[in-house]
C-alpha cells in the first residue's frame, strides 16, 4: 500500500479545464473520498491517478515516485468502474484471475490467490458462474475481487455503488469500509453522494469546477466548511445562509438580524464586503418564546426521528431541525434563536468562511 501525492495537477480538454492546479496528499491506508457534483473534475482526477488520462501539467507521486506519465499497466493500481466492466466472455474465476495472468504467477499460485480473494468477498460459490447471471451486489463483489486479487498499491473506485439499488448500497458501504480496513488498503473513492462519502471516508475532498475546495475529515467538512459551496453541498437539508447587511470586523461577537441581535462566535477576521452571510445548520437553531428572530411556519417535514421546519422570514426561508414531537401549525408565528456557538460568517465577496473562535 502506498501514499499518493498530487502536486499542481492540471488537466484541460481543449478549452475546457477539467482539473485546476489541484494539490492533495492521500495518506497510506487512508479511505479518501473525492466528492462533488457531476462535471467537477473528480473522475478526471481519479483517471489521471490511474493512468487512463495524462495530466496537462503537474505531478502524481505514488510512494514518492512520479508516475504521472507512466502507462496504467506500469503503476500497480487497481480500478473499480461504475459499470464494473467485468469481462462478459469469462466466468467469475477467469475474471478474477485475469490480472494475475499478466504477472507470470504459476497456475497453483493464481488459483490460491483467486480462492483467497473469493473467500474474502464471499463469492467462492460463484467462481464457475457466468458474469451475466450475477445479481448487482455479486457483480460488485467480483469487481472488487478483481481489484484486490493482486494486492495493488492503491484502489481507485469510480462511483462503484452508483448502479446498485438503495438496499444493496447501504450493505456494500459497510462491506467496502470493512474490506478496506481488513486488507490495509489505500483507497481513493469518487462519488457525488454525500451520504456515501460521510459514512465511509477518513477524509473527504470536496471539488467544484475543477478545484479542490477543502480536504478534511467528514466531521470538519460538515461542521467547519471553508467555503459556502462546501457548506451548501454537504448536509441534508443544507446549511442556512442568512444575509447580513453589515461589514464584519475582527473581534465582533454579535450581529443585527432584523430588530433582534444574534450572538456569534468571536471573529478573528473581518470581511471585505458589506453584504455577507451567516451560515448556520438547521440543527443549530432552536425555537424560543421571546427575543428571537420572528417568522411564520411555511412547511413541516416529518422525518421520523425529527422534523424539519421551513420558516418564512423577512430574511428568506430558513430551515430548523426540531424534535419530532414538537407541535407547530402552518402559518403559526414563531421565534427562533441559535442553539450553540456553531455559526460561520461567509464573506460575500469571495464566499470564504471567516476565521473565528469556532472555526479554529
Amino acid at each position, binding site marked *: 500500500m502506498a501514499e499518493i501525492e498530487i502536486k499542481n495537477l492540471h488537466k484541460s480538454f481543449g478549452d475546457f479545464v477539467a482539473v485546476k492546479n489541484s494539490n492533495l496528499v492521500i495518506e497510506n491506508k487512508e479511505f479518501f473520498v473525492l466528492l462533488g457534483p457531476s462535471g467537477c473534475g473528480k473522475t478526471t482526477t481519479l483517471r489521471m491517478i490511474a*493512468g487512463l488520462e495524462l495530466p496537462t501539467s503537474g505531478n502524481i507521486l505514488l510512494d514518492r515516485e512520479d508516475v504521472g506519465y507512466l*502507462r496504467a*499497466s506500469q*503503476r500497480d493500481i487497481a480500478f473499480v*468502474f461504475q459499470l464494473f*466492466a467485468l469481462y462478459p466472455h469469462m466466468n467469475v474465476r477467469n475474471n478474477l484471475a485475469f*490480472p494475475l495472468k*499478466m504477472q507470470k504467477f504459476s497456475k497453483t499460485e493464481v488459483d490460491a490467490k483467486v480462492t483467497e480473494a473469493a473467500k474474502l468477498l464471499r463469492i467462492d460459490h460463484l467462481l464457475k458462474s457466468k458474469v451475466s447471471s450475477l445479481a448487482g451486489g455479486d457483480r460488485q463483489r467480483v469487481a472488487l475481487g*478483481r481489484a484486490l486479487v*493482486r494486492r495493488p498499491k492503491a484502489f481507485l473506485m469510480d462511483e462503484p455503488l452508483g448502479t446498485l439499488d438503495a438496499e444493496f448500497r447501504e450493505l456494500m458501504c459497510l462491506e467496502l469500509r470493512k474490506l478496506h480496513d481488513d486488507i490495509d488498503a489505500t483507497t481513493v473513492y469518487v462519488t457525488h453522494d454525500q451520504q456515501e462519502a460521510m459514512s465511509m471516508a477518513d477524509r473527504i475532498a470536496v471539488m467544484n469546477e475543477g478545484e479542490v475546495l477543502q480536504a478534511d475529515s467528514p466531521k470538519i467538512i460538515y461542521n467547519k466548511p471553508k467555503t459556502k459551496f462546501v457548506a451548501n453541498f454537504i448536509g441534508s437539508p443544507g446549511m442556512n445562509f442568512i444575509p447580513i447587511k453589515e461589514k464584519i470586523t475582527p473581534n465582533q461577537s454579535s450581529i443585527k438580524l432584523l430588530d433582534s441581535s444574534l450572538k456569534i462566535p468571536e471573529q478573528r477576521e473581518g470581511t471585505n464586503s458589506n453584504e455577507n452571510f451567516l451560515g448556520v445548520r438547521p440543527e443549530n437553531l432552536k425555537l424560543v418564546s421571546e427575543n428571537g428572530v420572528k417568522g411564520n411556519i411555511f412547511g413541516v417535514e416529518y422525518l421520523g426521528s425529527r422534523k424539519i421546519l421551513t420558516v418564512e422570514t423577512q430574511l428568506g426561508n430558513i430551515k430548523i431541525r426540531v424534535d419530532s414531537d414538537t407541535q407547530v401549525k402552518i402559518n403559526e408565528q414563531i421565534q427562533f434563536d441559535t442553539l450553540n456557538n456553531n455559526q460561520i460568517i461567509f464573506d460575500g465577496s469571495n464566499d470564504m468562511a471567516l476565521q473565528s473562535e469556532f472555526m479554529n
Partner: protein
Amino acid sequence: MMDTSRSPSEASGFSRKLAATIIIVYMVVTLIPISWMVATSFKSVDSAISYPPEVFFEPSLEGYVNLFTNRSRQPKDYLDSLPPPDTWYEELVRSREMVITGPSKFLPRYSNSLIIGFGATFFSVFLGSLAAYALSRFKVPLKDDLLFFILSTRMFPPIAVAVPIFIMYRKLGLGDTHVGMIILYTVVNLSLSVWLLKGFMDEIPREYEEAAMIDGYSRMQAFFKVVLPQATTGIAATAIFCMIFSWNEYAFAVLLTQFNAQTAPPFIPTIIGEGGLDWPAIGAGTTLFLIPVMIFTVVLRKHLLRGITFGAVRK
C-alpha cells in the same frame, strides 16, 4: 370478444399467417433453381438435356464422376481387351464406352477457392477490426473524411477498375497467384469490414479495455483478449459477408487467373463433355461449390442474425 391472451405489441394470428405464407412463397421461388441444380447433378447426360425436362428420373452419379475425371472414348474391341473394372466409377465410365485418363482439374480449382476465399476473409476481418478499433477509439485526424474515403471505394463496382488492376498485376507479377487474389479480395472487402466493425466496436464500452490496461495489459493485449471476444457477433457477420463475396467472385477470377490460381467459379461453367456442356458435371460442381459457404453460414448463423441488426438488441 377481444383476445386478451396476447400483448398488444404482438402480431395477431392473421398477420402471422400472412407473414408465414409470404415467406413460404418466397422460399419456394428461391429454392427452385437450387433444387433444379442439385437434381441436374444426379441426372445422366442424356436425361439432363432431354425435352420436355424430366422432373422424375433415374438418379445417376455420372455427373460427379465426370466432374472429377478426364475420360476418352475408345473402340469396343479395345474396351473388351481390358481387364474388368476395379471400381464402381470405372464401371460407370466403361458402360459409356470410355476409359478414365486421369483426374480433372476440379479439385485443384476447388482448393484454390478455399485458400483464396478463407485467406481473403481472414485478412479482411483482421485488418478491418484493427482499423475499426483505431477509428472507434483514437483521435484520428480527418476521421470522418477518412471513413468516407474508405466507403467511397465501394461506390462503383470493383470491376470498373479491372483494366488498371490487370496491368498492375502483370507488372508486379501478381497475376494468376494466390497472394494476388487474396490481396485483391481483401482490398475489395476491407471497406465493408471497417464500416461494419466500427459500428460494433463503438458499442463496446471503453471501460473493458481500460480495466485490462490497469490490470497490466498493453493496449494491443487488451484488444485481443477483451475487445475482440466481445466483438464476436460483429466479426461473424462481417466474415460471412466477406466470405460470400470472395467465394463467389467471378469477373476478376476470369480476368486474372488461368492455370495456377484459378478458382472454381470460372472453371465450373467451362466443363465440356462430348458435343457440348456437360450439364450433370456442372450441376455437381456447383452443388459441391455451395457446400462450404453453406456450412460457414450455418455455423455463424446465430451470430449473423444478431449481427445484421447491428447490435440493436445487445446487452
